[in-house]
């Protein structure tokens, strides 16, 4: 939105967070709260707008072939604490000596992003990076990847002055790097972000003040509203762990922004001093079917999975369980994404693609050459006992519990299958149900890591399970290729033992290698269409994010990634 008159710089913006950051030293952290604290003081390379356009912040990029990328830094970027101007030298030094260090002595969480498989050697190697000018450097990928700038490896990537890093690189001093005072107090941020660090009282509040020298205000090519950004004199994040206290603070006006769980949203919609903003999110909720040996083998049949998809009413899930704050999901992409092709997506669980007779008739024919059959309303096995399946959900998430109960009821009514919901803690679920491996002594043909320990008849998880709603998966609407591992027999994340009928992985690879935008859309559209047809999981819904803002806060949007220009928000 463009303002015709500039907003005034005023006020203290207070937002509430349920958890505190772990560290301001972004080389050592991997949690989103720390990330948000830091990003307010360091812009990073570029932002991605909701319409998937790159908005350059510190830098812009150029590429001819989608394989070699030249990164160009702006000329007015100054470090703080006397480290001078930001140059390509800082970047290249950092990438080569810290990100790509072998072994990863600094413990940088995303170092894996800077290695790719070199097709010539077949090995994982560091991506070649070279300085080509004072403010330019080149990244030379081994293979074409048009989505590269949209990936977290470069999107909003930050940097550290060489002057700081060179104190620790020669000796590979992990502790020194971790405890460096300038890194921990963001002393080096200069004019590189809309705010500068003020104080951090652990577990209480994090305060940043407006940066008068913000570099972006001097850049000509930005929209008017950035001209005098930011418009808050001060911004504070308050850590409030207890949900009722947090919401109470929003209601009483002590904070200007807080996340609202869907079941409380109606109350806030009715308050006069709070505006409720609903934004879409990239995470999808599914029923994951365990097709490994310790699951239910009929899940391995596509027709069985398709039949079961008729059993669960997705609209009820969105309307009743998510209170309307969400959308029905049919595949591994949200409906509003560029890669979602309506014409190719097969729908289940809505309208006339839902119902008890339709489920039962399809299920019966899908299981016709197995021991399973219908005895009246119930699906029974060869011994005449009703089929009973387990469904797991996270014990710390009551919404998941409700969902699991609903699914159990739907399966019972529509498919004649008895389902027992089981709560499990997230850490137990990770270690005992997600990690799969072959038993001791057995030597699997192949293995794809700790989650996909081998062929589905050999490698299984420690505990048996049939279905789960525990984990939400990121659909990566900006970089859809990232979800490839879910849909390949040997995908690193394929812990549920899915062997696709069609070669979906090939479609992904082809799409990744194409620089032609429309061809890519076609290919991904086809891939997600196939995924919706094969139903590796039962896609249920994509919950939206509900945030409450004080009514005088303006400038935010309702689209995905609404915070991309948060430095332009203001008080009315």
């Amino acid at each position, binding site marked *: 939105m463009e303002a015709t008159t500039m907003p005034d710089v005023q006020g203290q913006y207070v937002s509430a967070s349920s958890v505190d950051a772990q560290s301001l030293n972004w080389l050592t952290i991997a949690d989103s709260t720390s990330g948000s604290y830091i990003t307010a003081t360091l812009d990073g390379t570029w932002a991605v707008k909701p319409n998937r356009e790159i908005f350059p912040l510190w830098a812009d990029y150029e590429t001819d072939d989608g394989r070699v990328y030249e990164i160009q830094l702006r000329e007015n970027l100054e470090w703080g604490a006397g480290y001078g101007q930001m140059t390509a030298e800082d970047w290249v030094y950092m990438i080569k000596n810290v990100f790509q260090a072998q072994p990863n002595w600094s413990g940088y969480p995303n170092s*894996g992003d800077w290695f790719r498989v070199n097709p010539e050697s077949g090995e994982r190697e560091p991506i070649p990076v070279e300085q080509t000018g004072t403010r330019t450097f080149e990244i030379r990928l081994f293979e074409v990847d048009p989505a590269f700038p949209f990936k977290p490896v470069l999107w909003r990537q930050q940097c550290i002055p060489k002057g700081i890093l060179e104190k620790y690189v020669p000796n590979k001093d992990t502790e020194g790097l971790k405890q460096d005072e300038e890194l921990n107090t963001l002393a080096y941020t200069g004019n590189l972000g809309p705010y500068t660090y003020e104080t951090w009282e652990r577990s209480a509040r994090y305060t940043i003040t407006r940066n008068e020298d913000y570099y972006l205000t001097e850049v000509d090519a930005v929209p008017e509203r950035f001209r005098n950004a930011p418009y808050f004199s001060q911004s504070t994040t308050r850590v*409030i762990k207890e949900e009722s206290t947090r919401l109470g603070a929003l209601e009483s006006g002590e904070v200007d922004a807080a996340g609202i769980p869907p079941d409380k949203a109606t109350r806030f919609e009715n308050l006069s001093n709070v505006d409720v903003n609903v934004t879409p999110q990239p995470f999808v909720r599914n029923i994951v079917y365990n097709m490994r040996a310790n699951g239910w083998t009929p899940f391995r049949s596509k027709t069985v999975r398709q039949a079961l998809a008729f059993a669960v009413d997705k609209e009820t899930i969105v309307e009743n369980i998510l209170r309307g704050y969400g959308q029905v999901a049919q595949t591994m992409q949200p409906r509003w994404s560029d890669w979602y092709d309506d014409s190719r997506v097969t729908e289940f669980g809505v309208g006339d693609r839902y119902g008890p007779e339709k489920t039962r008739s399809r299920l019966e024919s899908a299981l016709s050459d197995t021991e399973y059959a219908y005895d009246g309303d119930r699906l029974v096995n060869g011994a005449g006992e009703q089929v009973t399946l387990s469904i797991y959900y996270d014990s710390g998430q009551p919404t998941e519990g409700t969902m699991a109960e609903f699914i159990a009821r739907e399966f019972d009514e529509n498919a004649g299958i008895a389902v027992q919901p089981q709560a499990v803690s997230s850490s137990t679920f990770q270690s005992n149900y997600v990690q799969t491996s072959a038993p001791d002594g057995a030597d699997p043909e192949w293995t794809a890591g700790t989650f996909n320990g081998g062929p589905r008849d050999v490698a299984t998880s420690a505990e048996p399970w049939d279905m789960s709603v525990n984990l939400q*998966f990121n659909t990566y609407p900006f970089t859809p290729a990232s979800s490839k591992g879910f849909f390949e027999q040997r995908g690193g994340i394929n812990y549920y033992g899915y062997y696709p009928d069609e070669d979906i992985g090939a479609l992904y690879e082809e799409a990744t290698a194409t620089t032609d935008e429309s061809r890519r859309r076609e290919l991904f559209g086809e891939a997600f269409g196939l995924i919706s047809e094969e139903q590796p999981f039962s896609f249920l819904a994509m919950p939206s994010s509900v945030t409450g803002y004080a009514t005088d806060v303006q400038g935010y949007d309702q689209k995905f990634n609404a915070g991309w220009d948060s430095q332009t928000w203001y008080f009315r």
Partner: protein
Amino acid sequence: MRWYVVRRVAWAVVATFLILSITWGLLAITPNPAAEQMQFQAAASGGSAEAAEEAFEARRGLDRSPWDRYREYMINMATLNWGWSQSRSQSVTDAIASALPYTAIYSIPTTILSILLGLSIGLYSATHQYTKTDYAATFFAFFGYAIPNFWFGIILLLVFGVQLGWFPVVFDSDVPIFGLGMVQQLVLPVVVLVTGTIAGIMRYSRAEALEYVEAEFVKTARAKGADGYRILTRHILRPAAVPLMTILVGDILGIFLAASYLVEVVFGIPGLGQLSYNAIIAQDTSLVLGTTLIFTFVSVVGNLIQDVAYTILDPRIDYGDR
């Protein structure tokens, strides 16, 4: 007596060392869910789970052998260099020093009020046994004891903070310590805590005082013409103080550390309770050891002071030969 104290102190050191070692051991063998989450996230975005795991271990210093890590921690503890807190990215001493005042500001008033109120109500109950006031006091004390702290805190917050607006909903650490604003913020947390702890002190002091209320020397004092107040303070309280010391000295020493995690979470107070709890959840070994050391130290010293206090208060007790 001097030898007794020296021996006790020496034993305290040994006990502390044992506790710290056991704590370290438990942390070391507990699998860390954060590691698994990192790996899952990496695999889910098409990256390498192994790289994520390697990075995690490098960050946590877990790539060294257990014996090396153990030795380093123990030496650090002994030399008072308590190391770096991974989950707070600050030194452990900084973390504890910044959290301690926030615990002290509510634990000091709570302890003082609980002891004063608990003692006086208990003594009053003992000398006015079975009167209506006695019953009312007992009811009030057990009501406070039975009500779960966190629930009571939330209710009070909703009623007095959100609905009535008398008190701020969120604890503001910026407010100066000795001011009306701070008092206003602390009313609700202190009320919640005092109602919870007062029952114990009240009933205990009532029971102890009762024993002495019926004592013969109290009758002697009355026969001498002493008034009720003098009898209460000099003849009942003073001898009763000896058994009462078992809880009081501990309480008083814990005056800085009567940390309540539940209250800190509900009211958003960044004190020692949530510091130590979060440290355990995050498996931040150095911070866990640091906070354990403090609590252990306080209870050990507390026990010692308590025993010494006995000898001062009760002339019949003497540790000379032990």
